[in-house]
């Protein structure tokens, strides 16, 4: 065996011996590595899965470089214009039929889209199950989100109005839009089959074109040329791949960017924790290192032994943790991606997970080897002296301190024992604070999501029900038991009067709308009088409106509504493209505007009983709509993901606390033993440990709340939607949940570490 081989073998033997003699400590280190690895891999699965989902979908579906929508035109006319484009590689034409009724079992929607497709090779969607549409044979393809939501399987029969019952022959994923129910349900139908059913049309009308270029880098030039060539096409809309991505990200709401950002924080936290714990372990063993050096071990041998010892612990722990993190998050992640019409990462995750595993092994190994190498270079005498206790040399520590209660003194002593390692204290508090802020953000986010899904008040809607009755019945409804007030709520869709093509949801109340509906004011003031309107921030951004601007809307009657903007409001309805106008002005422009009666209930009134009364009046009562009414499944999946990541993060917090406390007790075994020799029982030891934990938890909790409220919450409040600001700052209730969790973690840590400390013989502790 060569000299290097002998040295390696010797270090390996020493490492194994070291592990055998410190089994409990090795187990604790392994738990830390496993938890960190779990956190890393969970973060990675989410970040990699969601962050690259759209690119994967584009590749799988071979999505066109350019998507063009327009009013129906003969296919030959469109083809001629497309053929004139430069750098053209190919195109596919299809007809999108909207507002179609489809049903399956008990499920039904009247807002579905049927894509009538030709026989081209490239269609811009990926077939992920079953087979494609075959010539004139019956059969449809459905998107996976619809199949999942309605439990449709291959071979199932779905009803499509106009085509009758059709067998589902395949599942197709089209990344140009999100899936049902975030968007309209989508099915794909063969043009050949439609021709067979309704007679051959040699030049069918199309309203959708997907265009592939030879070199997508020239997309800007092609777009310019396409606009020049598009004369004769009405309502033309172009979308590039990047534009489609933006639209999908918007549709997904608080999804991708947020989770990716949170995952990156988790990655950093896990890395810090691994490094800190490894460094602390070396610090604890300085005397052992000194002894090895004193008996002739080289600096390299010392570092190699520590590295191998850590390696032996980290490899199995990192493997287990990586697997656990992956198992905890890949299913919810895939479900979320399916809602976005994007494929799961599948085997693509193998390399990133291997990298995660490698990082989980390497960070602790380097974290142990480097300080060991560094310590090995110090004077042996200093190592032999320095391993016993920390020596804080600041003169201020030498001043006698007044002490108050008996318990307080022990608690304070515990805190001072931890504070004697200021670097470790700072690193642990920083890590705990980041984790606490992170967990708090997830709690706030989950609360906001729940509120948006269940509480109309989040949208500023104070009424609870609407009734399908004429406006004249408002006074009758107002007299019903449990009803506080009732008013007609007029609603119509208008287009902006500046020819920008924005569809605006126009809402009007006969009197001041504040009582029934008042989304939070973003700027300006509430509207007063018949010539003022409040507009959503989305509409204000689209039309460049500010308080004092003139709002010009074109109603379906063709008449215009002209009002002055009094203020902008944070409305999540209709992507913020909403205007609250006086009913008098609205009715003057369009006397036939549809309305329902908005019903405001007394506090504590029974909503079901009022609904029953309204039904007796012949109204069809409906609950006030929420922001995520269509996004229920998305919210459910998101909450599951947030919960999984929060639980892993919470466990990491508990581990970090336990580790810091255990290390302190291990380093101060003699101190604990002296206390016990002086007559300290279990209660006194627990008070000592309580101080040790509180000095970590209290500043971390305060910093965590500040981080969330001042940094994370505000930073992410605009990320979800550009047209409104969501309040993601933790509420008092959220903070209480965090404090409850930290209190439980503190109690558990104190109990666990005290149990271990009290098991040790006082004599052994005194000899340490």
């Amino acid at each position, binding site marked *: 065996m060569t000299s290097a081989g002998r040295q390696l073998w010797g270090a390996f033997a020493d490492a194994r011996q070291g592990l055998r003699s410190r089994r409990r400590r090795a187990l604790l280190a392994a738990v830390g590595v496993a938890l960190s690895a779990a956190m890393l891999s969970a973060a990675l699965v989410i970040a990699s899965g969601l962050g690259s989902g759209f690119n994967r979908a584009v590749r799988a579906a071979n999505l066109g470089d350019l998507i063009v929508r327009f009013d129906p035109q003969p296919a030959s006319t469109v083809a001629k214009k497309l053929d004139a484009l430069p750098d053209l590689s190919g195109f596919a034409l299809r007809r999108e039929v909207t507002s179609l009724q489809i049903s399956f079992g008990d499920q039904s929607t009247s807002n579905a889209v049927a894509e009538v497709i030709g026989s081209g090779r490239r269609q811009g969607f990926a077939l992920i199950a079953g087979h494609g549409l075959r010539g004139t044979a019956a059969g449809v393809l459905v998107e996976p989100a619809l199949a999942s939501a309605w439990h449709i399987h291959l071979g199932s029969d779905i009803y499509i109005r106009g085509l009758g019952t059709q067998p589902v022959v395949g599942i197709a994923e089209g990344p140009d839009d999100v899936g049902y129910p975030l968007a309209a349900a989508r099915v794909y139908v063969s043009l050949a089959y439609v021709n067979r059913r309704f007679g051959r049309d040699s030049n069918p009308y199309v309203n959708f074109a997907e265009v592939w270029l030879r070199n997508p880098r020239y997309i800007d030039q092609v777009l310019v040329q396409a606009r020049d060539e598009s004369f004769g096409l009405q309502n033309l809309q172009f979308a590039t791949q990047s534009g489609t991505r933006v639209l999908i990200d918007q549709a997904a709401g608080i999804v991708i960017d947020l989770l990716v950002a949170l995952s990156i924080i988790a990655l950093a936290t896990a890395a810090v924790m691994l490094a800190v714990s490894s460094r602390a372990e070396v610090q604890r063993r300085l005397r052992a290192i000194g002894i090895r050096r004193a008996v002739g071990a080289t600096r390299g041998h010392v570092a190699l032994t520590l590295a191998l010892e850590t390696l032996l612990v980290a490899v199995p722990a990192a493997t287990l943790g990586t697997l656990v993190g992956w198992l905890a998050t890949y299913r919810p992640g895939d479900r979320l991606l399916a809602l976005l019409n994007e494929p799961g990462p599948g085997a693509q995750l193998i390399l990133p997970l291997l990298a995660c595993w490698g990082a989980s092994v390497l960070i602790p190994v380097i974290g142990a080897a480097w300080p060991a190498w560094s310590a090995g270079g110090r004077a042996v005498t200093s190592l032999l002296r320095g391993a016993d*206790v*920390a*020596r*804080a040399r600041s003169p201020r*520590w*030498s*001043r*006698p*301190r007044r*002490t108050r209660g*008996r*318990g307080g*003194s*022990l608690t304070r*002593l515990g805190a*001072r*024992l931890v*504070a*004697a390692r200021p670097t470790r204290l700072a690193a642990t508090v920083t890590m705990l604070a980041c984790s606490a802020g992170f967990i708090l953000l997830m709690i706030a986010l989950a609360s906001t999501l729940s509120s948006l899904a269940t509480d109309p008040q989040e949208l500023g809607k104070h009424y609870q029900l609407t009734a399908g009755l004429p406006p004249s019945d408002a006074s009758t409804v107002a007299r019903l038991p449990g009803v506080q007030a009732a008013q007609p709520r007029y609603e119509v869709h208008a287009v902006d009067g500046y020819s920008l093509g924005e569809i605006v949801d126009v809402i009007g109340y006969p009197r001041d709308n504040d009582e029934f509906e008042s989304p939070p004011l973003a700027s300006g003031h509430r509207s007063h009088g018949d010539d003022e309107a409040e507009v959503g921030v989305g509409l204000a951004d689209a039309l460049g409106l500010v308080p004092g601007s003139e709002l010009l809307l074109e109603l379906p009657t063709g008449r215009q509504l002209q009002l002055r903007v009094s203020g902008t409001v944070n409305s999540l309805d209709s992507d913020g493209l909403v205007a609250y106008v006086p009913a008098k002005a609205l009715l003057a422009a369009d006397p036939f505007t549809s309305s329902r009666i908005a019903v405001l209930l007394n506090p504590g009134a029974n909503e079901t009983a009022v609904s029953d009364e309204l039904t007796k009046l012949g109204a069809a009562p409906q609950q006030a709509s929420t922001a995520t009414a269509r996004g229920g499944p998305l919210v459910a999946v998101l909450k599951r993901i947030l919960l999984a990541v929060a639980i892993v993060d919470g466990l990491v917090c508990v581990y970090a606390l336990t580790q810091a406390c255990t290390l302190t007790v291990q380093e101060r075994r*003699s*101190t604990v*033993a*002296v*206390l*016990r*020799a*002086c*007559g*300290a*029982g*279990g*209660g*006194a030891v627990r008070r000592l440990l309580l101080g040790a934990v509180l000095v970590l938890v209290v500043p971390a909790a305060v910093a965590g709340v500040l981080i969330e409220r001042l940094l994370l919450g505000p930073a992410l409040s605009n990320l979800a939607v550009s047209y409104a600001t969501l309040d993601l700052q933790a509420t008092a209730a959220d903070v209480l949940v965090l404090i409850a969790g930290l209190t439980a973690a503190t109690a558990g840590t104190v109990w666990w570490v005290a149990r271990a400390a*009290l098991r040790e*013989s*006082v*004599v052994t502790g*005194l000899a340490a």
Partner: protein
Amino acid sequence: MRRVLGGVSLAVETDEVVAVLGRSGSGKSTLLHVLGGLDAPDAGRVTIAGEQLTGRRSAAAARVRLRHIGFVFQQFQLIEELSGLENVLVPTRLPGAPDGGARRAAELIDELGLTPVASHRPHELSGGEQQRFAIARALVNGPEVILADEPTGSLDAANGAVVLALLANLRGRAVVLVTHETEAAAIADRVLALDDGALVNSPDGPVDLRR
């Protein structure tokens, strides 16, 4: 399993200083640990100030130590983060400690000539000063029994003599001092020898550390 102590029988009276001599490994420290309830013997019993220590749960044994026993260690065992005064105050702040600890601590520190260095931390003190603080800590709750394990083992001759004089002049207490230094035994009223776990020249009956 190795038999460390066997057939040991010892009774110590109030105001008596008993020195136990022995070579390294003879079982001196083990005897002291058994007497203080830090180690449990396989057989036999220990009674301190009328309270039986053996067979008690660790919490109950801790209460006996708090009220009746003070330990002095060879390595002083002062807590690095605390000043000399705070180290002395530690036993007074344990749950169940007698009242008036702060006053007694101040008196003891004054008596032992430690007032000028009371606010110093252990690494700023000499070995003799550290051991005197350790003795003050052992005395602060007014125990009836002081158990000293090689109290001069880490001190030079001059400081060792000061410490021994302190132990010799303790009033109203029983002192058991284990040491391998014959000079230390000079302060004892009675000198016993421990040889391979057996206490020789000790015809005193059962181990009964009464007042």
